[in-house]
């Protein structure tokens, strides 16, 4: 699915160059669940953004489904993101003025899906995350866990190949965290998604097939996590 070769990412802060990722090499297989751990500010989110085509590496190549994201034009990356990559954020990032169903529907707009088909897909995905009865609620009328479910539904409604989740349980209480983790795991198993999940939580990371650790921009793979449940 992904092949990252010698990827570096530097940020300029005035005259200073701040390295976020250093000579990173990584291969992520189709249908793999990779958990990425590391301390705050060490490059986890940068890696996720590069995997999602939201940012470009300073050097190196990022091959996704045969395309080098570093070389594609912005419009091509945007199209690829619309079709194949789903995002889940720590702060849910739902549009506050749109209902749960409309938020989910927003992911289908760039694909040009017809209105009737959109309604059908939205209803099905909300059903799959257990929020059929909350479709018309605004985000402010939903709990944190429900909002994250809407965000997951929004990421999955377009049936992406990969789901990139940036600390999806970071803002949730313990019970809700377990509930969301269980949901993600269920969807990963059921849909055959490639799941890259950034988390501080070792309990969640422990459920992934592989765990990568980023420390000061350098990535290392820990192979001693629990074996993937295939």
């Amino acid at each position, binding site marked *: 699915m992904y092949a990252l070769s010698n990827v570096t990412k530097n940020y300029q802060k005035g005259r200073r160059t701040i390295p976020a990722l250093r000579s990173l090499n990584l291969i992520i297989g189709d249908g793999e669940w990779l958990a990425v751990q590391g301390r705050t500010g060490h490059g986890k989110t940068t890696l996720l953004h590069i995997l999602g085509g939201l940012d470009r590496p300073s050097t190196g190549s990022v091959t996704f489904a045969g395309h080098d994201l570093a070389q594609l034009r912005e419009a091509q990356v945007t199209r690829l993101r619309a079709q194949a990559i789903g995002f889940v954020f720590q702060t849910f990032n739902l549009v506050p*003025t749109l209902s749960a169903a409309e938020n989910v529907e927003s992911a289908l707009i760039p694909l040009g899906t017809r209105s009737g088909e959109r309604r059908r897909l939205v209803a099905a995905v909300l059903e799959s995350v257990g929020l059929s009865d909350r479709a018309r609620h605004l985000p402010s009328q939903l709990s944190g866990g429900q909002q994250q479910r809407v965000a997951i539904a929004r990421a999955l409604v377009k049936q992406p190949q990969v789901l990139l989740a940036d600390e999806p349980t970071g803002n949730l209480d313990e019970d809700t965290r377990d509930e969301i983790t269980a949901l993600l795991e269920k969807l990963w198993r059921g849909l055959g998604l490639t799941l890259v999940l950034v988390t501080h939580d070792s309990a969640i990371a422990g459920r992934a097939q592989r765990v990568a650790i980023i420390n000061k921009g350098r990535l290392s793979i820990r192979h001693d996590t629990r074996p993937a449940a295939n």
Partner: protein
Amino acid sequence: MFFFTYVRRELRSRMRQAVVTAAGLALGIGLVITVTALSSGVRLAQGKVLGALFGVGTDIRVTTALAPASGGMAQITPEPYVRHSDTLSSPTQGTMAASSVPAIARLRDVTAAAGGLELTEIKATIPADNAPPPSSFQPPVQVSVTGVDLGHDQLGPLAAARLVSGRDFAAGQADASVAVADSAYAASHGLKTGSAVTIAGTRFTLIGIVRQAPGSNAPELYIPMARAQALANGPGGSLQNKVNTIYVQAASAADVGTVTGEISRLLPSATVTNSASLANGVAGSLKTTAQLARSLGTWLAVLVLLAAVAVASLLTLAAVARRVREFGTLKALGWRSGRITAQVLGETLAMGIAGAAAGIALGLGGAAAAAAAAPKLTATVQTTNTGHGGFGGGLGADGGIFSGTVGGPVQTFANPNATHTVAVPFTAPVTTGAIVLAVILAIAAALLAGASGGWRISQLRPAEALAKVA
């Protein structure tokens, strides 16, 4: 449809800001409509004044000043017996050869030219030179009479007149003793179609009665040009083959200036007046209002509109800044910058349309209020060489002629600085064009505001936008 749902929800969520933006635009648009209506009203009023003074269809008027030697004065020497005088003359204007009319008509850019004789008939009773001074003053009677070129009924003094009764002159009546009377004169003298009037001792039959626009300073009687030339006398004798006014129609409004210059070169001693120069001679509250509407009103509208655009742009930019996370998320979902910009433009456009609707209502109300509250407008126009002074009914009236007779020679004077003040009805019409302009302005302002937000969105890198969230 998702686009409209999103726009509606977004505007509803920040209703206060949307209302402020729409209200700002509405105020600007309302002012534009009101000022445009006022300007139209003033133009209309000016048009009425100028049209009435100038005659419909006439672009240029050519006259000539009295020769200094003549001084506009006619002296009548008393005889040893009481005598009645009835003279037709041109006391306030000099004369030109009638051949000047075809010469002007042949000029480039001239569509038509017609001659006219604007005359004054004075009927006076002259006491005997040895008679004692009369116990009461008997002022001479004065009637304004215009000789009309029957070959050009669309040009000249009768062009703007409305026939009230009877009929107009026919082409074959050039030498006939027939007259047309102004309705006010006819009413005050009990005249009707078929009545007889005496002009310079000649009996004329009234064939029609016409009404001119209020304030037009219309002559009291109209007779065929050939009869006027035959009966009138000037300082140099008979007015045969003479005219004292030439009415000129230019090929187009754009040619008026050129034609004015050409006539001035052809007739160097003539006074050539066009509607623009006549407008410059208009004074009074109408002129003040016109200047106010043009200068203060226009600038006020432009400033308010600019302020509204600035406020709308700033509010849009502020909204975009507040929604960076939202737009970053949409970009992460695969929305193109153009699609997000279109969404923002849709929001500002909706505010613009609401502003335009409210602005039109405000503008209509403003125009109606301005028309209702406007004081009575007047226009003061110099009448020297431009028409009939009117005797006014007393000595020294500002009608343009001063006359006196006390035990000596009868003298009549032309008053070269006579003015004529007319009341002008004022309306502030809101035209479809003004409303279309307002809607275009509102939409343009909204799009400008939306474009500023769109530019900010296009600059937004999704990773950057999402990083601001964390």
